[in-house]
């Protein structure tokens, strides 16, 4: 059978760096091809070559698409032939409706006048196809990320897609939404649409992919065929990093001390809808040297709990007490929370964690400028020394501390954010999805850092949607659902099944 797409010997050079070196990739008709590799392995570059972001001529090699040469000048050129990319950062207009977004730039119109009737009829059709149960009039801004993703896919189908490329589509989705998306891909496959799925979530890949192409350092390492027997995750990881990751979680002998932080009856209301309770009577304890996990589904109130504890940066009508070292502390503003010894590492490091236009040094000291100043005057030599110290300790890969953080990879950006918070000398670190969008190798480094924090006698409260990560790292796990803590497991008793059972059992208790 003739493949849909064949990329042969693709090489792409940027000044000084060979980003792609003789890459080969084929997509068979109606198959799901997974493209995996660490950040920087060249996945995105390869997809940009394919879609014409890098026009024909700016790279070496051949592309054959549907039996004809696929030399695209730009994105619209490749879209005309049915290749559609859905990027990680969604490209929807928030204040336009679902229907308007689906047909944006592709409106059924006559002489420039949009045929509203057709727009809605077609939009309903497409929405039904992707399983989006909303009115076509709903503004996209009112949809959650999962549904926005579905709008993107509906938009792709409207363009008569034949080859759908999804760049980390489930990175910010809850498990239910991810599952729905994967089912959708399988349905497309049944209808004869081929797709390329880029993802870091190896369990998903192992489940839906027909074949897996692994990129490493800009070259194709191998293509694994899953149709003749399942491929396990360790096999994929081995191909990605070029060696076996003996243990995905570094070992730690916990030395747990006294109670460090105690939260009682913590209740938070929604910032806009004051009658909605987002966090309900939560109580938690955290000891010195302890890593405590908070498991739960997307929207269970974990981030809201963390941010409300951190200087009321979320919500209103907050009630409850926080004690650190037995004394009640004032966490009513962020600077007071920092002074009380709390640090919060956000789940969204680009939007909320870093000033991307500024360099590593300036980001490192931002939350504790007095630490490098005398009488409000910054001592740049001290600042440089501090930042360089963290850069070495955290193994931040950059050409110095004056590199802008926008140019760093996800893992290195996260290390800068961690440096910033460590420099405030916190007693308690709240880590919100600390490894989101970070590749396997860098994850291990982040885990090691988290372990070191605990070994220093700090308390770590870790929120994560990746259950294996919580199970691998935490001494104790709280399970959160619908704003309440519904279960607590010591390490020995915790398992994915136990956590899921606790969540399911508690469903609907709030009526």
């Amino acid at each position, binding site marked *: 059978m003739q493949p849909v797409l064949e990329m042969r010997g693709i090489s792409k050079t940027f000044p000084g*760096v*060979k980003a792609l070196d003789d890459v080969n990739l084929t997509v068979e008709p109606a198959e799901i091809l997974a493209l995996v590799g660490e950040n920087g392995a060249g996945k995105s570059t390869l997809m940009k070559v394919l879609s014409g972001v890098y026009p024909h001529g700016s790279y070496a090699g051949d592309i054959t698409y549907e039996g004809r040469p696929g030399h695209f000048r730009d994105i619209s050129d490749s879209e005309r032939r049915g290749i559609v990319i859905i990027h990680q950062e969604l490209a929807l207009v928030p204040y336009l409706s679902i229907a308007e977004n689906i047909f944006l730039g592709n409106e059924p119109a006559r002489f420039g006048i949009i045929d509203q009737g057709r727009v809605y009829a077609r939009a309903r059709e497409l929405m039904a196809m992707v399983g989006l149960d909303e009115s076509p009039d709903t503004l996209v801004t009112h949809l959650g990320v999962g549904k926005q993703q579905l709008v993107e896919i509906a938009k792709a189908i409207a363009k008569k897609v034949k080859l759908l490329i999804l760049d980390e589509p489930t990175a910010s989705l809850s498990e239910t939404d991810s599952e729905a998306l994967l089912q959708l891909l399988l349905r497309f496959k049944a209808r004869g649409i081929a797709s390329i799925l880029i993802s870091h979530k190896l369990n998903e890949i192992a489940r839906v992919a027909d074949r897996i192409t692994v990129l490493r*350092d800009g070259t194709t390492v191998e293509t694994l065929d899953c149709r003749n027997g399942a491929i396990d995750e360790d096999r994929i990881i081995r191909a990605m990093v070029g060696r076996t990751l003996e243990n995905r979680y570094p070992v730690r002998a916990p030395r747990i001390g006294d109670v460090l932080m105690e939260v009682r009856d913590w209740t938070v209301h929604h910032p806009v809808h004051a009658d909605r309770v987002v966090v309900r009577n939560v109580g938690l304890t955290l000891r010195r040297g302890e890593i405590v996990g908070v498991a739960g589904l997307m929207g269970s109130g974990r981030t809201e709990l963390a941010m409300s504890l951190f200087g009321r940066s979320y919500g209103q009508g907050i009630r409850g007490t926080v004690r650190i070292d037995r004394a009640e502390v004032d966490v009513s503003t962020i600077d007071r929370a920092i002074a009380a010894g709390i640090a919060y590492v*956000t789940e969204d490091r680009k939007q*909320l964690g870093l*000033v991307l236009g500024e360099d590593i040094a300036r980001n490192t000291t*931002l939350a504790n400028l007095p630490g490098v100043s005398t009488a409000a*005057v910054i001592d740049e030599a001290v600042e440089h020394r501090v930042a360089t110290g963290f850069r070495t300790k955290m193994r931040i890969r950059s*050409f110095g501390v004056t590199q802008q953080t926008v140019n760093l990879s996800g893992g290195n950006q996260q290390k800068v954010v961690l440096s910033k918070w460590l420099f405030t000398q916190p007693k308690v670190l709240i880590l919100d999805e600390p490894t989101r969008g970070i590749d396997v190798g860098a994850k291990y480094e982040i885990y090691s850092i988290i372990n070191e924090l605990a070994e220093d006698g700090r308390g770590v409260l870790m929120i994560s949607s990746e259950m294996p990560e919580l199970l691998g790292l935490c001494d104790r796990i709280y399970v959160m659902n619908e704003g309440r803590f519904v279960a607590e497991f010591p390490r020995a008793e915790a398992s994915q099944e136990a956590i899921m059972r606790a969540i399911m059992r508690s469903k609907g208790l709030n009526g």
Partner: protein
Amino acid sequence: MTDITASKSMNPGGDLFTGGAAAGEPQARRRGRLPMAQLRAYGLIFALAVITLFFEVATGGVLFQPLNLTNLILQNSYVVVMALGMLLVIVAGHIDLSIGSVVGFIGALAALLMVRFQVDPLTATALCLVVGAIIGGVQGYFVAYLAIPSFIVTLAGMLVFRGLTQALLQGASIGPFPDVFQLLSKGFLANFAGPWTALLIAFGVTALLIGLNWRRRQARIRAEGPAESLASFIFRNGVTATLMLAFAYQMSAYRGLPNVLLVMFALVMLYHFITTRTTIGRRIYALGGNIKAARLSGIRTERLTFLTFANMGALAGLAGMIFVARLNTANSKAGVGFELDVIAACFIGGASAAGGIGKVSGVVIGAFIIGIMNNGMSMLGIGVDYQQVIKGVVLLAAVCLDVHNKNNRL
């Protein structure tokens, strides 16, 4: 992930844990940030030099004559003073359109206080500065705490204070001001050391500045930080020193150093220090660069925004007084359109409309580019109509060049 991060984090053939930095390093060094940033600063100085030389030649050498040079300083001083405040406002991600009207209002207030009510000039000046700060603060309150876009708040302020200026003056022009007050704009530093006082002072200040720069560079080298090369240091400081001394030499040939120049110089140094070395300056840049990240880092962003507007108001008040002291009369047209020159100076000087970027040195050069063009074009007899056209084109060209440079840097 963009292609840039992809290419930078590539480590062909290297081991995962050690290869990254080593492989990325030489390339990154080659196009490191420091030389590029300096090139941009040089580009601005180069543009100022070209414009200056053009008018010097076109006016047959009048531009640099001591009398005209002094006039240039006097005419331009209030633009520079306000540009310092506007820089902070723009870096914080906002804009202030009201300053032209505030200049008029404070000028009128100063006239009423001193001329009509015979308030002592020093008290009146202090009072005017406070009123300026309050005006800025009130607008800042709406922007910072009520989250009304600054464009709208200050557009309203522009109308309100222009109207209040007219109401205060009742259509009359009020003057003349007490002699002491006029010294602010018309006075010159006493030539205590003979005719070369200006040169002497300039020499002292230059030596001091170079000394400070040298100390800072040595400190950076000791900390193994990024320091500019010796050649670049000598070139940059050499050019600055030469310019300052040549300028002082010309000035001493007229009446010496005007008081307002000293005020301006002190403010430029102060704001340079605040923006580059103090925590409050650093926080304003962080606020403009990413307000959410800044807030989550414990920075009280509302208070900071409020303060930048209050500061802008006080500087607009000062500029208002410099302006009326020079004209020696307050009228209701004073300050019309000043906000445009000031904002243009900031953008020509490399401040980013998106916030987070901008330098005092750039803004001062931007203000002088505007000032020299105003002065030179007037001398060449170009009508006000075409002066505006030319200034508009220069503004657009400067920002285009800036955007182009930034894109190339990435």
